[in-house]
């Protein structure tokens, strides 16, 4: 781990955090993040660039705690069926979006 790598990792993480704070919508953020993750994993790029894009940008951009906080609204109101339904729908939708991104970047090359 050299200094340049750490600095670029920190800068991409800051950029992702401010973008998340600016958009302020957990559903849109998770979909964009999954699409980008699927787009990057099928590309053949160097290992350090891949680390910076995946653990730096995509992981800081999407947040699991924001997702749980979104589902917490249903616990207060007592809609337990709705809670279970929303969890499944969001996860399956994100899986499909990631698959679309994966196939799209394969077709482009």
């Amino acid at each position, binding site marked *: 781990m050299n200094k340049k790598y750490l600095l670029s*990792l*920190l800068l991409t*993480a*800051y950029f992702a*955090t*401010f973008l*998340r*704070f600016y958009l302020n919508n957990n559903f849109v953020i*998770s979909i964009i*993040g*999954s699409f*980008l*993750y*699927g787009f990057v*994993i099928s590309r053949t790029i160097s290992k350090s660039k891949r680390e910076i894009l*995946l*653990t730096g940008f*995509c*992981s*800081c*951009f*999407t*947040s*699991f*705690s*924001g*997702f*749980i*906080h979104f589902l*917490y609204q249903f616990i207060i109101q007592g809609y337990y069926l709705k809670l279970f339904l929303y*969890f499944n729908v969001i*996860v399956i939708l*994100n*899986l499909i979006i*990631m*698959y679309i991104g*994966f196939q799209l970047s394969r077709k482009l090359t």
Partner: protein
Amino acid sequence: MKLDDIIYILAGSTFGLIVRIFVKHISLRKKVFSFNNILIVNVLSSLFLGIFVGLNITNKNLVLFFSVGFLGCLSTFSSFIYQLFNLIQERKYLRFVLYYAEVLVLAFLFFCFGYFITSI
């Protein structure tokens, strides 16, 4: 946005990123105690979120530091989706269902655990 808000978010996100990379580094090094680093990070962040919600903090600076900066950078949703995607690609459907249920149960168990600690 003021300069103070930016500094609070930067400090929180730096701290969260360091903790996540530290957990990843440990899991790669020790092959004997191999565990799923993304599951650990997500469960830990949902425990912290439970404590944070239970305390009912309305101080704006603390929300920016802890909720937006620290927890946002510590937990990752897209890596969790990628793990599920990878299990489907390798055609391990039983492990896919088990991992899915594991995350659903553990995250809410630890969230409720953190929530009820503060109400004692």
